[in-house]
C-alpha cells in the first residue's frame, strides 16, 4: 500500500513537471465538422507520404469552437490550425490578436455545395429559394401585413410540391452551414422591399428574413448530417439540408432537390450555376511555422493539386475544387506568408 501511495505521488509530480518539458512533434488541428472529413484524408495521406512527420491530430467540434481554441494564444500547448466552414469574423480576429495570435494566415482550399434532399422514394422537388423562405420563415408578408407563417403543408407554398406536412431539418445555429443557408437561401427568397413596406424597421429587415419559424415545422439539427439522415429515415416526408459530399456518399438513400432548376453536383457548384455553396477555409498560426515540425509541409501538401485538384481524393469525397487560378493564388499567398 505504501508503495502504491509513493507511486501515485510520483506520477502526479512527474505529470506536472513533465508536461511543460515535452516538445510537441505532431500538428494539432481543430474546428469545423464539415471540414473534418477532408482534413482527415489529408492528414492520413500526409502521414503516409512523409516519413519524417507524424500524422496530424484533427479534432472536431465546430467552426466557432475551433476558432476560439485557435485564438487562445501562441505556444506548443495551443493548436496550430483551425478548420472552418465560414470565414473568420472580425471580432474573432480581434480576440486572436488580443491573445497574441497576431499573424493568422487564411487558406481557402475549395468549396462545398449545400443540398436539399428527401427520402429516396419521395417525389421530385424543384425548389426556388422563395419556396424555402415561404415554408420556413417565422413571419411573412401577406396582403401588406406581417403575419405569423400560416403554411402547414408544402403544396400550400407551391402547388407543384406534394401535400406533405412541412418538416424541414436545417443546420443548427452553431453550424457554419446555417450562415450559408441564411444568406444563400433565406435572403435570396426574402422580399425585403415588401417587409419594409409592411412596417419592419430598415435595420431589422435582414434579421426578419433570417428568422426561422419556431413552431416545430423547422427543426434545428445541432448534430452532424448523420442525425439529419436519421430524421429523414424516421420521417419519410421530411426535407433535410446536407453537404454535397454527404449526399454523394448516401445517394442510395436520399433524393436530391434542384435549386433554381439546377441539379447540385461538383460540376454545377464549381461553375457557380448551383447557387447554394460556400468556401471552406483553414487558418494557420504563422508563429508556429518552423516551430512545429511539418506544419509548413502539411499546408503545402493540403494545397497541392494531388489533394485538392480536380482528380484528387478530396474531390472524389465531394469537395468542389476551386478554379485553377484560385488554387495557384492560394498557394502563392501561403508561400508569401500573407496574413490577415
Amino acid at each position, binding site marked *: *500500500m505504501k508503495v*502504491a*501511495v509513493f*507511486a*501515485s505521488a510520483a*506520477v*502526479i509530480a512527474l*505529470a*506536472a513537471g*513533465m*508536461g*511543460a518539458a*515535452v516538445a*510537441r512533434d*505532431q500538428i*494539432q488541428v*481543430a474546428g469545423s*465538422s464539415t471540414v*473534418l*472529413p477532408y*482534413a*482527415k*484524408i489529408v*492528414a*492520413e495521406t500526409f*502521414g*503516409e*507520404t512523409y*516519413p519524417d512527420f*507524424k*500524422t496530424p*491530430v*484533427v*479534432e*472536431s*467540434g465546430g467552426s466557432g469552437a475551433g476558432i476560439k481554441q485557435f485564438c487562445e494564444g501562441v505556444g*506548443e*500547448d495551443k*493548436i496550430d490550425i483551425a478548420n472552418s466552414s465560414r470565414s473568420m469574423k472580425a471580432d474573432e480576429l480581434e480576440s486572436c490578436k488580443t491573445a497574441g495570435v497576431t499573424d493568422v494566415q487564411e487558406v481557402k482550399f475549395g468549396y462545398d455545395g449545400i443540398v436539399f434532399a428527401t427520402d*429516396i422514394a419521395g417525389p421530385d422537388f424543384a425548389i426556388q429559394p422563395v419556396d424555402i423562405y415561404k415554408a420556413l420563415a417565422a413571419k411573412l408578408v401577406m396582403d401588406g401585413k406581417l403575419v405569423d407563417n400560416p403554411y402547414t403543408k408544402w403544396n400550400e407554398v407551391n402547388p407543384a410540391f406534394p401535400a406533405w406536412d412541412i418538416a424541414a431539418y436545417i443546420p443548427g445555429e452553431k453550424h457554419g452551414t446555417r450562415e450559408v443557408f441564411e444568406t444563400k437561401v433565406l435572403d435570396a427568397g426574402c422580399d425585403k422591399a415588401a417587409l419594409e413596406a409592411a412596417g419592419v424597421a430598415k435595420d431589422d429587415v435582414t434579421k426578419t428574413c433570417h428568422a426561422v419559424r419556431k413552431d416545430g415545422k423547422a427543426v434545428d439539427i445541432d*448534430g*452532424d*448530417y*448523420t442525425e439529419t439522415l436519421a430524421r429523414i429515415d424516421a420521417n419519410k416526408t421530411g426535407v433535410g439540408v446536407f453537404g454535397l*459530399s*454527404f449526399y454523394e*456518399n*448516401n*445517394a*442510395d*438513400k436520399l433524393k436530391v432537390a434542384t435549386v433554381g432548376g439546377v441539379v447540385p453536383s461538383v460540376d454545377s457548384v464549381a461553375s457557380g450555376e448551383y447557387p447554394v455553396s460556400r468556401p471552406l477555409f483553414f487558418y494557420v498560426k504563422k508563429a508556429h511555422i518552423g516551430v512545429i515540425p511539418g506544419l509548413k509541409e502539411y499546408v503545402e501538401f493540403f494545397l497541392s493539386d494531388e489533394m485538392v485538384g480536380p482528380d484528387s*481524393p478530396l474531390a472524389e469525397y465531394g469537395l468542389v475544387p476551386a478554379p485553377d487560378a484560385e488554387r495557384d493564388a492560394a498557394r502563392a499567398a501561403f508561400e508569401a506568408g500573407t496574413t490577415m
Partner: protein
Amino acid sequence: MTDSALAPSAMAAPAAQRRDFGLKRRHASEARFRFYGITAIVIGLAFLIILFVSIISKGYTAFVQTSITVPVEFSEQIIDKNNERATDPLKLRAANYPLVARNAVAAFLGIDPTDKAAMKAAGDLVSDSSRVQLREIVQADPSIVGQTRTVTLLASGDIDSANKGQIDLSVAEANRKVSDKQLELLNQLKEKGAVSMPFNWGLLTFGASSRPESAGLGVALIGSLFMMLVVLIVSLPIGVAASIYLEEFARKNRFTDLIEVNINNLAAVPSIVFGLLGLAVFINFFGMPRSAPIVGGLVLSLMTLPTIIIATRAALRSVPPSIRTAALGVGASKTQMVFDHVLPLAVPGILTGTIIGLARALGETAPLLLIGMVAFVADMPQNPLQPATALPVQIFMWTNEAERAFVERTSGAIIVLLVFLAIMNITAIVLRRRFERRW
C-alpha cells in the same frame, strides 16, 4: 369460571371476523404489486433485448472484412524505374503502390490495359491502404522488386459494403457508390475464388482512418488502456488512503461532515465539469500536452475518486466492530488494527468499487471533448503523453461518418466496448463472490 370462559370466546368471535376482513383485498394488492414488478422487469429486459438485437444485427458484419487475394507483381518499371533504390531508399517509400495493386487485380482478371474505365474500376476495388501494405512488404525485403508474390489486399470500403449487401443495388447506378462495372469485376473475382471474408483483425489493431476498411480501434484501445492505468495508479491509493483516514482515524466533527457532503456531491457532478477543470488546470496551467491519455486519465481520476472513496468507506464500515476490538484487545496498535485486520477484510468491497468506477470512466466521452481527445488520431501512441482517443470517443467519431461502411463499424465498436465493460463488471462480481465473508 363460566363468565371468564365465556368472555374470551365472546371476544374471539368478532376478532376472528376482523382478521378475515380485507384478506382478499390484501392478497389482491400483493398480486398487483407482483404484477407491477414483473412488468417493470419485462420492460427493462425488452429494452435491453432491443438494444442488443439492433447493435449486434448491425455490427456483427464489422468483424469480417472482404479481402482480395491476387498475385502481385512488384514491377520494377513502376516502383523503381531507374534502379535507384540502392542509393536512394526514399524511392521505395514514395513509389506508386496503388498502381501496383491495380495492375495486379487487372492482370488477374485479364483486363485489357488500354480499357481505361475497366482499369479504374479494378483499381477502385482495392483499398487505398494497399499503398502502406505493399510498401511495407517492399521495405522489409527490397529484393522482392521485380518478383511476384501472392498478397491479400483489403477491398475498398464501398466494395466491402456492397459485398455484405449493405448498399441498395436496386437504385440507379448514378445514385450509388458502387458501379455496375465494379460489381461485375467483383463477381468475376468471386468466381475465381479470390474474394475471402477473413476475421477483421484490423478492427482491433488499426488506428483511425478516413477509409473505413483500414479504420480500427487500435489507438482507442491503447488510449483507453493508458487512461485506465493512470486512473488506477492515481485514484486507488488516494481514494483508499482518504477513506481509511476518514473512516478510522478522523474525529467526527463538523469539518469531516462537510468533507463527506462534498465527496457525495462530487460523485454526482456531471463529467463535463471535470473536463473543464482538466482543461484549465492540467493543460492551461501545467502545460501538459493536448489529446494525451495522461491528461484524460487524470481528469477521469478526479471523476472516479468520489466513487472509490464512497465504496471503500462502505466496505470498511461493513467490517464488524468485534474484529477491531479483538485486535486492539490483543495489543495491536490502531495502525496495525487497520492495516492487518480491517483492510484485508474490506479489500473485496474496495476492488468492486474500484472496478465499477473504472467501468464508468471507460465509458466517458464528455470530459475528453474539452481536452482534445475527441480527435482523429492515426498514429499509435507509444506512451501516455502522445495523442490518443478512447473507445467511446471512437464510437462517437464513427457515428458522424458519411460512408456506409462506418455504420457497421460503429456497432462493431459498441460491441467491443460492451465486451470490455462486461468483462470488468463480471470480474467485480467474481471477486466479490470469491472473497466476500459473511458474518
